[in-house]
């Protein structure tokens, strides 16, 4: 039960990463490697501020803002300096490694003895439902803080997804999406597409950094290496999500990305729980992703064939 709650929480936190990757990769078709650096940046900034006594919520926001700045730089390198898209991401990611070390002052900041968002969520839960020991849940006992953390992560994921949805419904948001679809046409319409891309990457990396800031608080430490490999997981979540909801409207795609992230973590959790040979873990996750990609398409084609036969 703890594993289910833990993996759902991590899945929801990393759904922000998936949303960020969705914006850069799907909306702008921009393979943005900055992600790996900005995730750690968000964690680093938040951790340092929390340790210094800043309110965790403010620290988390600051982490997100730092990520936005990193995204801006990648965007500016590409649009203003004409650096190749991939390379500008690589440059910023590489630079961020040093920046992150500078920010933290060392490679790892533990957050054990300070108050973080999950603990605040636990306290809020206590205030709302009364304090007490572990909660019984269908026969299992569950730590209150874990439940509060899950509720908090769900709230954040829903809130962010909703804000994102509403934002992309505005004129500015529509213009951004249209820029991703057909930049030439937008330029003809008098829209500065470069600025659109910079803004898009800023939002994308802001979300990624937010995920990093939350992840650090949830796992209890920020580490300079925590971003490594994250871009791939983000992409996997986005693609799984797309496979789940099919090629469809923007709102659905957002929900798909969140679901993809959660599902992906659940699959890893099952692999862990069943005690598969640890050396095979990565192979199993790859197979899971493959299955998630292939199965929906197969199901759909089956359904279509049936529909054709009925017609």
């Amino acid at each position, binding site marked *: 039960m703890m594993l289910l709650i*833990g993996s759902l929480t991590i899945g929801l936190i990393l759904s922000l990463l998936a949303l960020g990757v969705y914006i850069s990769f799907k909306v702008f078709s921009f393979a943005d490697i900055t992600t790996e650096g900005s995730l750690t940046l968000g964690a680093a900034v938040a951790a340092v501020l929390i340790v210094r006594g800043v309110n965790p919520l403010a620290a988390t926001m600051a982490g997100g803002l730092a990520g936005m700045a990193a995204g801006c730089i990648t965007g500016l390198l590409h649009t203003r300096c004409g650096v190749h898209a991939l390379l500008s991401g690589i440059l910023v990611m590489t630079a961020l490694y040093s920046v992150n*070390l500078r920010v933290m002052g060392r490679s790892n900041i533990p957050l054990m003895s300070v108050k973080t968002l999950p603990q605040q969520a636990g306290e809020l839960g206590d205030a709302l439902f009364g304090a007490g020991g572990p909660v019984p849940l269908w026969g*299992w006992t569950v730590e209150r803080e874990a439940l509060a953390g899950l509720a908090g992560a769900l709230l954040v994921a829903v809130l962010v997804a909703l804000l994102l949805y509403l934002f992309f419904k505005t004129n500015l948001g529509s213009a951004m999406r249209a820029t991703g679809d057909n930049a030439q046409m937008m330029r003809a319409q008098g829209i500065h597409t470069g600025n659109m891309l910079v803004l898009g990457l800023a939002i994308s990396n802001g979300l990624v950094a937010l995920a990093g800031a939350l992840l650090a608080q*949830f796992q209890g430490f920020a580490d300079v290496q925590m971003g490594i490999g994250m871009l791939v997981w983000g992409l996997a979540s986005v693609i799984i999500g797309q496979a789940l909801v099919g090629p469809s409207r923007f709102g659905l795609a957002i929900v798909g990305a969140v679901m993809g992230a959660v599902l992906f973590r659940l699959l890893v*959790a099952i692999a*862990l729980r069943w005690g598969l040979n*640890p050396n095979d873990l990565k192979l199993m996750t790859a197979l899971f992703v493959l299955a998630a990609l292939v199965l929906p398409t197969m199901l759909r084609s089956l359904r279509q064939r049936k529909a054709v036969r009925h017609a």
Partner: protein
Amino acid sequence: MAAHQDRMAGSVEVCKRLFLGVALIVGAAAVLLLSDLRQRQATKDAGGGAEKQYRVAIFQIASRQILDDSVQGTIDGLAEEGLVQGRNLSVTRFNAEGDMVTANAIVQNILQGNFDLVATVSTPSLQTMANANRAGKLRHVFSVVTAPYGSGVGITGDKPGEHPEHLLGMGTFQPVRQVVQLARELYPDLKVAGTIINPGEACSQACLAMAQDECGKLGIDLLVAQVENSSGIYEAASSLAARGIEAFFIGGDNTVETSVESVFKAAVAARIPILAYAPDHVDAGALVGMGANYYEVGKAGGKLAGGVLTGRVKSSEYAIRDLMPRKLALNQQALAGLKAPWRIAPELLAQADILIDEQGHKTVRGGAAPVSTPALPAGKTWQLHMVSYSQSMMVEQWMRGFADACEKLGLRAGEDYQLTYRNAQGDMATANMMIDAAIDSQADILMTLTTPTLQAAVRKKPPMPVLFGLTANPLLAGAGKSDSEHLPGFTGISTMSDYEGMVVVIRECLPNARKIGTLYNPSEDNSVFNMEQMKEALAKAGLSMVTRATNEATEVPAAALALAGEDIDAICQVAGNLHDSSFPAIAQVARQLRKPLFAFVSGQALTGGAAIAVARDYEQGGRDHAALALRVMRGENPTAIPFAAISRTLIIVNTTHAAELGLALPPSLLQRADQVVDGKN
């Protein structure tokens, strides 16, 4: 109306689209929960039986054959009184593994542990327990004590009432007189004998007095050498041999008895025998071992404890007396090569309970010599969950040592314990989930390897004991304030470098050295920590340290050159990720400028270019980890166990590298090195 229908159709379409994802998520969650079903029922079924449950603590001071035997005897003695483990008795075993600080923590633990009775085995455990329990809060039965009257616990004599109300037991004095007489029998011309004692132990003083008395009667000169700890034993024994003794009398002394091998080395060199007041020393090469049958002693203690619990034994009527079920062990193999004509008469051979013949075959006769088992609560298979952040050579060495030690400690895989190993393969998010997975699988003990998994565990604070390993610095990882003051439920084995050991090696090689240089990485916690600790250790020995900071692999060669350009006598590279991976660059500079190079990682001496490595033995780390797990499985509270570093340091010398670096290797170091290689392998 049409618009409304459109919207309706739209919503249906949205729901359809989302259905697959939601279904898969719910399905996956259900699979996870189904895996946990057992856990749910287990919590439901937890309920108490009706029979009175007795809780007994057994406290032994160290792991030695006779103590393990007597603990087994105690448990069997309790059973003879109708108190059976698993039915109406739960036994928690405590073992200080020879450490007095731990012993003091253990007795506090026992006092607060809500036990009905504590049974102590050995004199130090009697003393520490009785001292903490002066108020008599807990009933206490002792055994395997040489001289209960002289141990300062308030026992004044051997009549009823001459002991505190809560404290009962029996004395077992070593058969010192008989052993001395036996020596005269085996070698009638015996004139001079020697013995080694730790004067700090009450029991060895008592044995010495008795041996001196008996030797005096028989006209044997008894020479005495004193030691304070086991490291001085070999020297003490050699000095006695040099003074012309013809036999060693050994026994009644925990310090000497745990290192009989050292005495044996000296005895073999001088071609004289060892006669011990304890039978198990024949295994280590003693000619005669005569002592109590400690299994029987323990059993008597167990029966007494059972009697006290059931009310059969009244404390006010009980008298503390001596009990000596004799056990004789002879080793015919030890006769070979002796200077003097020692001889074992055939009728004596027939009396032996344990006999090792000329070929080294051991026969155990009569009386059930109990098999030494780790004595875990019966019928339980401990679920050990080991989690690691990534797979590496160090992790593999560690796990090899762990498996090896489990076998040596008598832990049977699949019966006593089941090991589940998980590996995050370098993914932080997975590292977190592994802790949850261990909680859900209801692990009895969680063992974390590497720092990130420890940190994840610190954050989650799982309900079971957490024993970390392969962690450079548990304090920086947030597991505690100091080695003894740490998070409840957490303890473990760190890989912290052996700074003092390194300083000794440096001084041995370079007696005139004054300044030692190192590179460090200011952005790596462990690198900074290691640098500071090394600096302190050097300062204690009157040496100073010169440092250069580097943040990146590309800066290392230049920094090494700058460092070597300083007026330093040698480079001693502290451990850290950056400088471990860029070590070859440092070695190259050292070679060019002919500065001796010392390192803390074994591979850096084997192939990396360092002349000498003073490295922690990761396999030993795994063994320490297993021993720690056993302590916890026996019922010790991890909170009371201080953090410890790996107990063994390896000195690895590479002669080729040393020659390249212009370092003359002292013969003493080559002799005590664990591994001497030339550059070719």
